[in-house]
C-alpha cells in the first residue's frame, strides 16, 4: 500500500463525514423552525396546549430502539451475526412503532379540537413533529434495507461502515426528538 493510501487510513471515512455535515444541515433546518416558533410565541394570538400522551410513549420507544441498535452494532463487531440480525429487526420494528405512535398522537391532538388551521401554535406542532417523523421514516427505510441485507443468505459483508452510518443517523434522530419534546414542553 502506498503512503498516500496509508495516510488516508487515519482519516474519518468520507461517507461518515458526509453524514455528519448532513446532520449539521438538518440541525440548521430545525433550528430555523424552533427559532421561528420562539419568535411567533412572543407575538399575539399564541395559544398554549398540552402535548398528546402518545408522544411520551413514542419517546420511550425511540430511546429503547437506540439501545437495541447500539447492541446490534456491538454484536456485529463481535461477529455474533444471529444476535445482530435479531436486534436489527427489533430496531426496525421499534422504528415503525414510533411512527405509528406519532400518528396516534396527531390523531389525539386533532380530535381534541386542535386542528392544523385553528391556531398558529398547533400548526407549528404539526409541522415540526411531522418533519421530524419524515426524517425517522428515512431512517426506517434504511433500517429495512439493513435488515433485508442481514437476513439475506447471499450477502457476506463484514464492513462496519454501513452499520456505523446507520447508528449515527438513528441516534441523531433519537436525540433530535428528545430535544424537540423538551423544547415543546418547556416553551409552549
Amino acid at each position, binding site marked *: *500500500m*502506498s*503512503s*498516500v*493510501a496509508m*495516510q*488516508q487510513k487515519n*482519516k*474519518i471515512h*468520507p*461517507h461518515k*463525514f*458526509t453524514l455528519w*455535515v*448532513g446532520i*449539521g*444541515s*438538518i440541525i*440548521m*433546518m*430545525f*433550528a*430555523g*423552525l424552533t427559532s*421561528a416558533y420562539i*419568535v*411567533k410565541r412572543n*407575538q*399575539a*394570538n*399564541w395559544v398554549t396546549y398540552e402535548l398528546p400522551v402518545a408522544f411520551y410513549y413514542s419517546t420511550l420507544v425511540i430511546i429503547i430502539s437506540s439501545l437495541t441498535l447500539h447492541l446490534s452494532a456491538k454484536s456485529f463487531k463481535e461477529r455474533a451475526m444471529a444476535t445482530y440480525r435479531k436486534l436489527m429487526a427489533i430496531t426496525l420494528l421499534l422504528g415503525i412503532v414510533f411512527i405509528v405512535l406519532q400518528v396516534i398522537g396527531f390523531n389525539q391532538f386533532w380530535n381534541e379540537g386542535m386542528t*392544523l*388551521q385553528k*391556531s*398558529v401554535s398547533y*400548526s*407549528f406542532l404539526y*409541522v415540526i413533529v411531522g*418533519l421530524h417523523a419524515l426524517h425517522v421514516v428515512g431512517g426506517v427505510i434504511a433500517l429495512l434495507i439493513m435488515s433485508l*441485507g442481514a437476513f439475506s443468505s447471499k*450477502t*457476506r*459483508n463484514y*464492513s462496519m*461502515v*454501513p452499520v456505523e452510518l446507520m447508528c449515527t443517523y438513528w441516534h441523531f434522530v433519537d436525540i433530535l426528538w428528545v430535544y424537540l419534546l423538551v423544547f415543546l414542553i418547556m416553551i409552549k
Partner: protein
Amino acid sequence: MSTTTLQETAHHTSHGEAHGEQHHHETFITKYVFSQDHKTIAKQFLVTGIIWAIIGGLFSVIFRLQLADPTATYPWLEDLLGHWAQGGKLQPEFYYALVTMHGTILVFFVLTAGLSGTFANFLIPLQIGARDMASPMLNMLSYWFFFLASIIMMSSLFVQTGPASGGWTIYPPLSALGDASAGSKIGMDLWLVSMAMFIVSSLLGGLNYITTILNMRTKGMSMTRMPLTIWALFFTAVLGVLSFPVLLSGAILLLFDRNLGTSFYLSDIVVAGKILPNEGGSAILFQHLFWFLGHPEVYIILLPAMGMSSEILSINSRKPIFGYMAMVGSLFAITILAFLVWAHHMFVTGLNPFLGSVFVLLTLLIAVPSAIKVFNWLTTLWRGNIRFTPAMMFAIGFVSLFISGGLTGIFLGNSALDIHLHDTYFVIAHFHIVMGVASFFGMFAGVYHWYPKMFGRYLNNTLAYIHFWVTIIGAYLIFWPMHYEGLAGMPRRYYDFSNWESFKNFGGLNQFISMIALLVFAVQLLFVFNFFYSIWKGRKVTNQNPWNANTLEWTTPIRPGHGNWPGDIPEVHRWPYDYSKDGKDFIAQDVPVGADESKH
C-alpha cells in the same frame, strides 16, 4: 459482495496504489449524460448555467425596454410573448414576472449553481489531488436535481397565469395567497417546488465539496498548502449547507400557508373585498427566515469569485499572493459575519432600533475583512510582472467592481441612511455591482483561465478582449447612474415612472441605461459564441501547463480522463504560490523543496 464493499474497494484503490485511470466501460450515456466524472458534471453545470444566463439576461433587456420608453410599442414583442405583450406593450403583471425571474435565475441558477457548481466540481479534485469527489454518485445526483429544478422553473414560464411575480424574495402575503396576483397562482407553486429541488441539489453538492476537501487531499497537501480557490469554495459550501436548510424551513411553512390553510405568515388580510380567516401570523417572520439564507447567499455567490480571482491575480502577476493567511482569515471572518447580518435587509420593517444598531455594527464589520482582501489583491499586483491575459483582465475587473460596489454597501449598512435609500435604485446599483457583475467577472475570469483544462483548447483572445472592455465599461455605465436615481428617491420595481413629476427627468437617463444594457447583452452573446465555437474549433492546447502555474491541475494530461492522473497522484511539497522565487519563474507544488531553497 455487496455494493458497499465494492465502493469500499474502489475508494481505496482510487488513492494511490499506482492504479492510474479508472478504466470502466463507458457508453455515450454514462460518459456525457449520467456521468460521475466531476469534470463532466462541472461542464454540465456550466452549460446549463450559460443557458440560464442567456434567458435571465434577455429578461432584463425586455424589462429595460419598458423602462426606456413606457409609451413605446414593439410589435415583435407580441409575437414573442403573446398576451403578455398585447399590442406590443409589456403588461404590468408580466413586467413583475420578468423582474422576479431575472432575480431568481441570476441569483440561484446562474451565480450559485452555475458558478459554484462548475468550479467546485471542476477544481476541488484537480487542485487538492483527488481522483474524484468523495461521493461521485451524490455529485451526479446534485446535477440532476439542479436539472429537474431547471425544468420546473422553465415550465413555470409557460403557464397561462405566468411565472412567480412577487419578487425573487417571494415575501408573503403576495406569495402565500393564490388570489393575490396572477403570479401568485401556479407560477408560485412551481417556483417553490423548483427551489426545493434546487436546495436538495445544492445541499448534495455542498456535502460533497466539504467532505472532499477535508478528507481526500493528496499527501503533503495540508490545509495551509491549499490554493485560495479551494479555501473559498470550502467556505462557500459551509455557508450553503448551513443556510439553505433555513430557507427550506421557511419555504415549508409558506407551502402550508398556501395549500393547507395555516397562518404562519398571514393575519388580518382582505383580498378583493373578502376577509380571510387567517389570524395570528406574521409576514415579518418569513423575512427573518428568508434573509437568514438570503444574506449568506450573497457570499455563496461572491466567495468563489474571490477565490478564483486571488489565484489568477497571483499567477498572472508572477508573484506570490500577498498575505495568504490573511486571505484565509478574512474568508473565514466573512463566513461568520454572513450569518449575523441578515436583519440589515429589514431595517424598515419596524425592527427595534437598538437591534438595528447592533446589525449596523456587525454589517460594517464586514468592511474589515473585505478591505484586507482588497489590500492584498492590490499588493499582489504591485510591481508584479503582469501578463494581461483575458482571465487576468476579468480578475482585475472583479477587484475594481468589488471596491466600487463595496463602498456603497457602507452607505446602505447604516440603518439611518437606509430609511432613505431602502428600495430605491441605489440598492439596485449597489448589489448589481458588488455581487452580480463582480461575481460574473470572477466567473468569466475562471472560464477564461481554466477553459484550456476543460476542453483542451483556447478561447479566442480578440473576442475575449472585446468582451472584457465592453462589459466593464458597460457595467459601470449601466449601474453608476442608478446611484443618482436612487439618491433622488426613485423606487425599484416600478413599471412606469412617467406618472411622477419628480422622476420624469430621469427618462433620458433610463433610455441611456437601457441602450447600454442591450449592447452589453449582445456582447455576452459574443462570449457564448466564442465559448461554443472554441470547444470544437479553438486553438489546441499543446503545453501541459499553458499559464506556467503551480497548482496540481496542470500536472494532469492535457485532456485528463476519469481519475485525472494516469499514474500516481503527485505528492505536494510546497504552497501553490512560489512564483519568481530564487530566480525561478515558478515552482510547481509537486516539486520537492531543494536543500538551499529559501523559505517563502
